[in-house]
């Protein structure tokens, strides 16, 4: 029933049915959303005999000429043949303005072609590459609709352009590689060149147009350059043709100043082949963040035939720049992300690699040398590696999970002798014969990475291929590879993957940052320490332990000081009380009680008194740290005496009245005598309990990866991805970083914020910034609000850790949760018969602590939802229990995983292929 009916008599044509229930289905009118009426459907798969996909269309530029301004309405009407004519315009257009308009129309054509699914994309040059596209149609149509959406944005406002650029670029990246794979599938370099020259249907004259605008004044050149830059980049991503610069000047001259001839020394752009003379190279290539590329080519993958020259400096650069500069350029050229081998170009056993596989291949202990785009075969069992159709060229690490299963004809052998399922070549057979392997009767061998071989179907090892003396020589003679060194076992490799140094661009990409924040005393440092103990093989170095020891000891002195201060107070109080009593008693007993009156249970002897005074004085002057470690040696016996003194013990019994004394102090004070010995070694538990151990200076970070549990041993691409992923836990102390959170904007690239709240704070009070006495839970809440609403964390996921559950459980039995104003409506329903806690936890009625924790989580979730409209994840943790913290941090990992799998329209965090370095955060 539509809801309107209940309040309107005027809608007399429909009244609410109040009769008995009917036995049949009532027909319903489905409300129509006008915006969602399907207008045109994409043609389904079956029409294509081959795998055809369509390039993603990017939004159109608002053109300067309104008549040519494309919009989404006329997209379908644009006939295909227009393309040809527009193309013609492009090749003759002398100015960038016309080119711009023409280009945008051209895209439109592509777009129309897509909608009608004619499959005829533009001219021949394009279609040849279109055929080669891989990927499913469905995917593309989603992208396409996405870009359709964008178009309207584009047209309405030019301002959006910048912001959309990054989004679109990442959309396009998927399609980038396959389109240009045309040239690379065929391995031969000559062919690549040939095709490269033929292929471009559209060329971009960014170089000349830049020059054309401002040939005279240097400053103007830059203007022209940069103005056009964005436009051309955008263009290039769609029309994925090889970038080729075209010179206006005569052949062989510099592309920028048009001077010189083919014999003058020139530097070549790695991407577009533009050549610059020594006068122009620095201006044309700018600061070369990716090596020798024109400013306009930055961010584009290099021309594959030039891969060999990466990192090899020319004489010209050496002359122009100093040594350090050249070194930096070459380093950037070799290591920057855009210049890395695109994984889709490399086929192993007939399957293109994905990114992780390429990383595995490149970072293994024995990586293939000189990997180029092309087809390779890889024998996973023995580690033999070679180009498809050729004999093995190298033995790399075995058991890498890359590519598909090896094919029998991988190396195009015709010997009928098989090795690990591959028919070997004649040369190999020769080698085997020389190695003394019986090859009669076309046997099938299994060869392991150590060279041990056995016949198929048999168990016993028959020998070692490379074990025989002189085999190295034979192999060298036949130019066959030998294993370089005893290769590592598989298990070691997985481990070394973590510790291995990876290139910087990879590190950026595989590092997920978790920011851990919380109000003072919320236990962030405990969680941080716990994580360190959990995930680090060596949690604390010797130095750290030494420092921790000193910290703990000075903490204990601090606690003692607080106790002594308390003792003073108690002594005074009891003396005063005694005097009062005396004065009232005086009338009755005028006795000689003056001696005993000075002695209360809080009094201490003169020696201890002197020590106590000294300690309090040092504490007040604030240089408690300065007296270490001398103090430990000197005062340890005194401390022992002091601790055993009845006065201190009775003060300690009243520790609840000492507000300054933190709750953890009892843990240490009870062992004060042990701790203050010089040979004291802090245990892990001591460290967990200790305050101020993790860099008191505000920030601590910990790089770790979740250890793989035994259960998920099986290889699976997902897991591999995980193994590469590393996490960084960043712990920030609000205290050290000021209240203004000026630093918060530095953390916009974190994957998630973990906010820590101490549950047991609900009845505690402290002095806040304004000097008023406030509930600590309320302060936590305030801090939570300020963090959650901070503009930096607008789209961030938050995980709330409700810490100190153990303390809370115990406390809630004594102090009602309603102590804190915020929790005034906590009215738990508890059964009265709760004989004992242990049995209670077994049967299903939850304890008061659990109820309280649940209630608190809901409170925070509601608060979060009201502030941001999103969902808050929460986890209840006992900071001192490793399992509890482990579970919470694993939960954090799960949340991050969900995030990645979430269908995301912005796609900017389409992580692995995005060009941005830190693209995990939304």
């Amino acid at each position, binding site marked *: 029933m539509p809801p309107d009916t209940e309040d309107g008599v005027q809608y007399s044509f429909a009244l609410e049915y109040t009769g008995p229930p009917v036995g049949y289905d009532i027909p319903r009118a489905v409300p129509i959303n006008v915006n969602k009426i399907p207008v045109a459907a994409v043609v389904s798969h079956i029409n294509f005999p081959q795998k055809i996909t369509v390039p993603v269309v990017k939004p159109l530029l608002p053109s300067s000429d309104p008549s040519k301004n494309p919009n989404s309405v006329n997209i379908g009407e644009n006939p295909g043949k227009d393309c040809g004519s527009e193309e013609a315009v492009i090749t003759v257009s002398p100015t960038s303005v016309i080119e711009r308009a023409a280009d945008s129309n051209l895209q439109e054509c592509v777009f129309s072609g897509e909608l009608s699914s004619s499959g005829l994309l533009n001219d021949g040059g394009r279609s040849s590459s279109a055929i080669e596209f891989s990927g499913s149609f469905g995917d593309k149509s989603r992208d396409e609709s996405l870009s359709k959406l964008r178009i309207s944005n584009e047209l309405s406002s030019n301002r959006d352009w*910048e912001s959309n650029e990054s989004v679109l670029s990442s959309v396009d990246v998927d399609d980038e590689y396959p389109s240009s794979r045309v040239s690379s599938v065929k391995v031969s370099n000559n062919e690549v060149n040939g095709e490269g020259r033929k292929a471009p249907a559209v060329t971009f004259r960014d170089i000349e147009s830049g020059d054309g605008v401002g040939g005279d*004044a*240097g*400053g*103007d050149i*830059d*203007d022209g350059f*940069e*103005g056009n830059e964005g436009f051309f980049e955008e263009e290039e991503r769609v029309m994925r043709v090889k970038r080729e610069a075209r010179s206006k000047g005569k052949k062989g001259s510099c592309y920028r100043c048009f001077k010189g001839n083919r014999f003058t020394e020139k530097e070549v752009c790695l991407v577009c082949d533009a050549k610059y003379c020594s*006068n*122009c190279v*620095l*201006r044309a290539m*700018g*600061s*070369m*963040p990716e090596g020798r590329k024109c*400013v306009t080519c*930055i961010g584009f993958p290099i021309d594959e035939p030039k891969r060999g020259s990466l990192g090899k400096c020319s004489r010209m650069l050496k002359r*122009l*720049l*100093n040594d*350090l*500069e050249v070194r*930096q*350029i070459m*380093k*950037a050229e070799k290591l920057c992300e855009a210049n890395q081998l695109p994984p889709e170009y490399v086929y192993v056993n007939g399957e293109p690699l994905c990114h992780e596989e390429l990383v595995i291949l490149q970072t293994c202990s024995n990586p293939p040398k000189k990997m180029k785009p092309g087809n390779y075969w890889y024998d996973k069992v023995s580690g033999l590696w070679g180009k498809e159709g050729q004999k093995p060229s190298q033995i790399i690490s075995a058991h890498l999970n890359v590519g598909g299963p090896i094919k029998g004809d991988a190396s195009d052998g015709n010997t009928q002798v098989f090795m690990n399922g591959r028919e070997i070549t004649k040369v190999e057979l020769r080698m085997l014969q020389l190695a003394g392997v019986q090859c009669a009767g076309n046997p099938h061998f299994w060869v392991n990475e150590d060279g041990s071989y056995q016949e198929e179907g048999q168990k016993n090892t028959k020998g070692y291929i490379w074990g025989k003396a002189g085999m190295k020589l034979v192999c060298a003679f036949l130019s066959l590879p030998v294993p370089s060194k005893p290769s590592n076992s598989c298990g070691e490799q997985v481990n070394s993957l973590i510790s291995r*140094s990876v290139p*910087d661009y990879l590190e*950026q990409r595989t590092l997920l940052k978790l920011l851990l924040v919380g109000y003072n005393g919320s236990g962030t440092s405990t969680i941080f320490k716990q994580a360190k103990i959990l995930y680090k093989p060596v949690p604390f170095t010797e130095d750290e332990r030494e420092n921790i020891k000193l910290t703990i000891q000075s903490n204990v002195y601090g606690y003692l000081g607080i106790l002594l201060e308390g003792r003073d107070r108690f002594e005074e109080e009891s003396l005063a009380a005694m005097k009062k009593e005396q004065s009232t008693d005086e009338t009755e007993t005028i006795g000689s009680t003056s001696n005993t009156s000075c002695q209360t249970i809080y009094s201490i002897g003169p020696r201890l008194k002197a020590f106590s005074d000294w300690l309090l004085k040092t504490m007040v002057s*604030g240089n408690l740290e300065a007296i270490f470690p001398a103090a430990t040696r000197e005062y340890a016996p005194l401390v022992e005496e002091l601790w055993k003194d009845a006065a201190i013990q009775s003060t300690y019994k009243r520790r609840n009245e000492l507000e300054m004394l933190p709750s953890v102090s009892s843990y240490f004070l009870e062992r004060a005598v042990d701790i203050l010995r010089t040979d004291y070694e802090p245990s892990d538990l001591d460290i967990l309990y200790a305050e101020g151990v993790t*860099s*008191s*200076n*505000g*920030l601590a*970070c910990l790089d770790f990866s979740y250890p793989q549990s035994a259960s998920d041993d099986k290889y699976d691409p997902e897991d591999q991805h995980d193994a590469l992923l590393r996490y960084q836990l960043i712990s*920030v102390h609000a205290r*050290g*970083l*000021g*209240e*203004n959170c*000026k*630093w918060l904007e*530095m953390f916009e*690239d974190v994957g998630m914020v973990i906010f820590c709240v101490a549950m047991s704070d609900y009845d505690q009070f402290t002095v806040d910034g304004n*000097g008023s006495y406030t509930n600590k839970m309320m302060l936590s809440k305030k801090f939570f609000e300020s963090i959650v609403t901070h503009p930096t964390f607008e789209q961030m996921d938050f995980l709330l850790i409700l810490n100190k559950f153990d303390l809370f459980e115990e406390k809630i039995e004594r102090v009602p949760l309603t102590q804190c104003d915020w929790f005034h409506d906590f009215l738990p329903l508890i059964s009265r018969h709760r004989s004992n806690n242990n049995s209670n936890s077994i049967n299903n009625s939850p304890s008061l602590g659990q109820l309280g924790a649940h209630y608190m989580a809901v409170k925070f979730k509601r608060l979060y939802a009201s502030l941001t409209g999103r969902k808050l994840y929460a986890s209840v943790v006992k900071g001192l229990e490793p399992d509890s913290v482990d579970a919470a941090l694993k939960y954090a990992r799960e949340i991050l995983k969900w995030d990645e799998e979430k269908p995301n329209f912005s796609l900017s965090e389409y992580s692995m292929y995005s060009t941005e*370095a*830190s693209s995990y955060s939304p």
Partner: protein
Amino acid sequence: MSVSELKERHVAATETVNSLRERLKQKRLLLLDTDIVRYARAQGRSPVSFGPTDLVCCRTLQGHTGKVYSLDWTPERNRIVSASQDGRLIVWNALTSQKTHAIKLPCAWVMTCAFSPAGQSVACGGLDSVCSIFNLNSPTDKDGNLPVSRMLSGHKGYVSSCQYVPDEDTHLITSSGDQTCVLWDITTGLRTSVFGGEFQSGHTADVLSVSINGSNSRMFVSGSCDSTARLWDTRVASRAVRTFHGHEGDVNAVKFFPDGYRFGTGSDDGTCRLFDIRTGHQLQVYYQHQGDNEIPHVTSIAFSISGRLLFAGYSNGDFYVWDTLLAEVVLNLGSLQNSHESRISCLGLSADGSALCTGSWDTNLKIWAFGGHRRMHCAVGRFLCILVKLVWFENHVNVLSPVILM
């Protein structure tokens, strides 16, 4: 004395201080018979005229992959050090726009960097609360990273800003989120003096910026989140020489005026101000009304070599050039076509004054220089203009010449 009694007295004292402060303000206003604008007008000063191409971007330094937070020039030779959130310091040759060093930092959250006067080492500081010194000449380790040559640790909060004492490679002043500034002796790695802090009269919130007087290196100013700027004498650490009130938001940037008698500030309240250190007066406010939306914060400021121009970067990406005398905006470089795409976080003028470098959250640095064809009154001016162009626009990489922006 009970706690409540103490509290009452504290409240009363705070009130007294506030009323005194108000009276001081009134008194100052009375004494301030004119401001620079009126005085300059009375003297017949005309505003600086600036064509749109007079200050143009002549280099783009690309190479960082994170937001650029800070930059500094060397006193001689045209080198720049920049610090970015990608966890790297990059040393640039500004003339060739090439990198000479890329230093990977142990802590990626770097907020500030500085070049030593001799150009041999760089300093940086950030959220790790440590100021790290790198010697550019020291050999790199096996991974190609430059080792830290000294760690200045002692701050209890993030290091927000650092600057070398002019002409002394061994002394450095840092400001920190722990409300103090510290003068360091680099050779020993110890604190020489601490300015502010718990027991001394100092800033009451995070200190965000310091600037050392160029003509008298014993004096420096600091700007803080308590919306004041304070003037310090390095010989007297116990108290600030003077406190400058006036801003209504965090003071993000302070910079001494070239003559050393004034300094400028930039604040979250969207204004830049000019203060006189001798009288303690606020001389001028630079504020551009932005309409009714959010007021952009001033992130960084710099003066031209003559002091006539004030460059100020704003959090919304604006980049104004102010006429300091007449308090008029001469140019908005942020609106130029090839300007930064994001907030300008830091700026710095080269020591010879010929160029200005800006660093932005769009990961790039840009160098701006005079690109006009204006006729100057004297021949020298003309000559200088040409030289500026030679250095920054042509490929005369090795021209070393005294060239001035204004």
